[in-house]
């Protein structure tokens, strides 16, 4: 597991986790018409009421954070792999890796904060 192979293994493992989590997310959010799951407040799965109901459940808040982390890692690592194939100069590769890490960590921070804050707001019964 040298020369970054472990990151590739993590990338594959993240892909399998994504297949399950994102698959479930897609089924809940985009297939509400035929598979009505986790949307007890009306027919529209992505309505404000149903979104707030899901936000009030801690398992959903935690799954959003996990999904975001895994998705960002899988996606940004793939993007980095594609860009490295272009055989850029080492300094450019390093700068690009740092930039992707900053974007990933930044978006993970924003999304995680939002998932948790939305959970707290939904528990309080407010609109934010």
């Amino acid at each position, binding site marked *: 597991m040298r020369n970054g192979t472990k990151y590739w293994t993590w990338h594959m493992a993240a892909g*399998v986790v994504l297949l399950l989590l994102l698959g479930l997310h897609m089924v809940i959010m*985009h297939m509400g018409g035929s598979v009505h799951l986790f949307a007890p407040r009306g027919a529209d799965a992505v309505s404000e009421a149903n979104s707030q109901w899901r936000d009030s459940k801690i398992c959903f808040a935690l799954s959003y954070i996990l999904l975001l982390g895994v998705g960002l890692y899988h996606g940004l690592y793939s993007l980095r792999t594609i860009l490295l194939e272009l*055989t850029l100069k080492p300094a450019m590769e390093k700068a690009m890796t740092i930039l992707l890490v900053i974007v990933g960590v930044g978006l993970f921070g924003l999304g995680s*904060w*939002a998932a948790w804050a939305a959970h707290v707001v939904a528990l309080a019964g407010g*609109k*934010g």
Partner: protein
Amino acid sequence: MAIHRYDNRLGVWGWLGGGRWGIERYAYLLHRLTGLAVLLYLLMHTVVTSLRVKGIYLWTEGGFFHQPIFRLGEFAVVTAFAFHAFNGLRLVLVELGFAVGKPIEPIYPYKTSVGVQRPLLIAAMLLALVFLAVGGYNFMLGAAK
């Protein structure tokens, strides 16, 4: 041992040349394109859905993203996900050595292992189509409202 760096002369244009690699090579191209599309969507989706903390729900009725063009975009995301996910599962299985057959002596006339992998590709695409059919049905339900 020193690692040599080679110039990727063709760059991204090299993705387009499938040559004699067969349909799996085009699955590779599509895997990359759908992956990049889903990543782009994820980056925007994270920002847009984070706004709900401030009570801004742009995707609900009356919201900016509730327009028909974005519904079409939503279906495109489901399509990209369906292909990328099931093709990705195939790639993981192949990477781990499943469904590629046993190694054989390279005796002329040579046999390619691509044919051995083909049933897995067909199975993955059938699963993606089933997922897409359910997604399409829901998309039409939403459009009919």
